[in-house]
C-alpha cells in the first residue's frame, strides 16, 4: 500500500518534471530573444555565445529606435491593425449574425467563401491583389494594407462571431421585436451588447493576425507604410545582420501580442482552427 502510494507520487513528480522540461524547451527561443536584447551590443555577436547578459543594457533598444527608425514602422503596424480590425469587425459581425440566424442561400454562400479562404494559399491571392492595389494607386499606403488585412480577416471574423451569436437564444430578439424593435435595431440594441465579450475576443484575434502578418505587408509596403515585421526582416542581411536591434524590436513587438494572448487564452485553439490566416 505504502509503496504503491509512493510510487504514484514519484510517477507524478516525473511527469511534472518532464512537462516542465518540455515547457522550458518551448520557452527557450523567447528567452533567447529577450535576454539577447538586453545584452550590450558587443555581447550579442560574441563567440562563444553568452547565455545571460554580463550587465543589463538598453543599448540595442536605443540603436533600434534612433538609427534604424523602428518606431515609425511600429506606428504603421498599429494604424493598420486598428484600421483593418475595425473594418473586419463592422462587416464581419453583421454577416456573422446573419449566418447564425438565417438559412437563405445568399447567407449560406459564406460557407463556401470561408472554406475557400481556409484553403487558398495567401501567396496565390497576393499576386492579383498586388496588381489591384497598384492599379488603385495604394501601394505603400496604410489604407492599401488596411483594406487587404480586413479582407484576410473577414471570413475568420464572420465565422467566429457567428458562433457567439448562435449561443444567444433567438427568443431574445423576438422579445425585442414584440417590444417594438425591428430586426436590425434588435441586433444593434439587444444582441450586440450581449455578444460583446465574444466579439471582443474575435477582435483581439483579428488584431493579432493583422499585427503579425508579413507576406502582404512585404509586398504592399516598402518605405512610408512599412510595418514592423517588414522592418525587422530588413535588418537581416547576409553580411551584417543587426541582431541586437532585431532582438530588441522582436521583444517590443511581441509584448502586446502576449498580453492579448493571455486575455483570450481559452479561445486561441478554436480561433486557429477556424482559419487564422497564417503564412
Amino acid at each position, binding site marked *: 500500500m505504502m509503496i504503491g502510494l509512493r510510487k504514484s507520487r514519484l510517477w507524478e513528480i516525473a511527469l511534472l518534471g518532464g512537462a516542465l522540461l518540455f515547457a522550458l524547451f518551448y520557452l527557450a527561443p523567447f528567452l533567447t530573444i529577450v535576454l539577447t536584447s538586453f545584452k550590450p551590443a558587443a555581447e550579442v*555577436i560574441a563567440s562563444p555565445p553568452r547565455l545571460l547578459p554580463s550587465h543589463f543594457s538598453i543599448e540595442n533598444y536605443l540603436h533600434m529606435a534612433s538609427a534604424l527608425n523602428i518606431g515609425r514602422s511600429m506606428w504603421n503596424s498599429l494604424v493598420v491593425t486598428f484600421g483593418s480590425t475595425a473594418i473586419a469587425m463592422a462587416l464581419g459581425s453583421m454577416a456573422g449574425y446573419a449566418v447564425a440566424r438565417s438559412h437563405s442561400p445568399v447567407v449560406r454562400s459564406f460557407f463556401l467563401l470561408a472554406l475557400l479562404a481556409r484553403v487558398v494559399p495567401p501567396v496565390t491571392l497576393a499576386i492579383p491583389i498586388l496588381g*489591384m492595389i497598384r492599379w488603385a494607386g495604394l501601394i505603400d499606403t496604410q489604407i492599401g494594407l488596411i483594406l487587404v488585412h480586413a479582407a484576410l480577416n473577414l471570413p475568420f471574423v464572420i465565422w467566429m462571431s457567428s458562433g457567439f451569436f448562435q449561443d444567444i437564444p433567438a427568443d431574445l430578439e423576438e422579445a425585442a421585436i414584440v417590444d417594438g424593435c425591428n430586426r436590425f435595431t434588435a441586433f444593434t440594441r439587444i444582441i450586440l451588447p450581449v455578444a460583446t465579450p465574444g466579439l471582443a475576443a474575435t477582435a483581439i484575434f483579428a488584431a493579432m493576425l493583422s499585427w503579425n502578418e508579413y*507576406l502582404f505587408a512585404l*509586398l504592399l509596403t516598402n518605405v512610408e507604410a512599412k510595418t514592423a515585421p517588414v522592418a525587422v526582416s530588413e535588418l537581416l542581411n547576409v553580411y551584417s545582420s543587426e541582431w541586437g536591434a532585431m532582438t530588441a524590436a522582436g521583444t517590443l513587438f511581441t509584448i502586446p501580442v502576449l498580453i492579448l494572448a493571455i486575455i483570450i487564452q481559452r479561445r486561441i485553439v478554436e480561433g486557429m482552427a477556424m482559419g487564422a490566416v497564417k503564412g
Partner: protein
Amino acid sequence: MTYPILMHHLHNGSVQSGQPRRDSHVRSRMRSMLQDRNFVAIAMSCPALVYLALFLLFPLILVIYNSFYHYDLIDPGSRQFDGLDNYVRAIGSHRFWMAVGNSLLFTAVVVCVEFVLGFAVALFIDRLKRGREIVRTILLLPLMIAPIIAAVAWRYIYSSEFGILNWALYQIGLIDSPSALPWLSSPAFALPAAMIVDIWLTTPFIVLILLAGLQALPKSLSDAAKIDGTSLVREIFLIKLPLLRPVIAVALVMRLIDAARTFDAIWILTGGGPRFSSEVLSTQIYRTLARYADVGFSSAIAVLFTVGLMILALCVYLILRPSDAGGRA
C-alpha cells in the same frame, strides 16, 4: 422553424389592421421588410459579401485569367495572351518540380512529426494532476507570436558563430566544432532546419486540440479499461486513438493546409536557399512575382499549387475521416 414565419404574419397582420393611410404605405412596407428575417439577414451580409467578392473571388478569377497571359508587373502594357504557355513552362521546369518536392516533403514530415509528438505530449499533459494550466499557457505562446519573429529567434539560435545551439552541441561533444553543423547555409540542412522551426511553432496546435479531445472522452472509459486490466498501450491505441479519429482528421487536414502554405518562417530562415535547396512553392511564387515581376508565370504556378493543395487536402480528409459504418462508438 415555424416561429419566424408566425412572427412575420403577426406583424403583417398588425400593420394591416392599423389605420389605412396612404402615405404610410411605403413606410409600413419598409417596416415589414425590416421584420423579415431573411431580408434583414441578406441586407446585413451584403457589405461582407461585396467585400469578399472584391478581395477573394475577384482575385481568384484574376489569378486564373493572368495565368494565361505574359504579363510584366512593372509594365502593364506588356500584357499578351499566351495560352497555356506559362503552364507548359512550369511543368517543364526543373525548379518547379524541386519546389513541389520540397513542399510535399516539408508538409509530410512536419505533419507526421507534429502528430506523433503532439499526441504524445497531449497524452502526457492529460495525465498530469497539477501544473496542467501552466503548461497549457506556455504552449500557447508559439501559436501567438509572429512567425517572422520566431524565425528571427531561430536564425539567431542556428548561427554557427554565435548561435547557442551549435555551441551546446559542441560542449556536449556531439559535433567537433561549432561550425560543423551549418544549419542554414548548407543545402543538406536548410530544409530540415526550417522543418524544426515549423514543428516548434505549431505542434502546440495539435497538442491543444488533441488535449481538448482527450478531456472530452468519458472518464468511465479509462476506468473500465483499468478494471479490465487493459495495458496503457492498448488503451491508447485501441480505445483513445479510434475515438479521437474525427478530431484527428480535422486537425491534421488543417495542419496540412497551413504547412503547405508556409511562407514567413521559410522566407526569413533561408529565403528558399541555399541554391534553392529549401525552396517551397510559396517562396517560389513570391520570388517569381517580387524579384522577376513575372505575373503570368507566378500566377500559373499559384493556380497549380492551389488546385493541387485542394485535391490533396480533400483526399487526406477522406482517408482520415472515420467511415460512417461504425467508426463512432
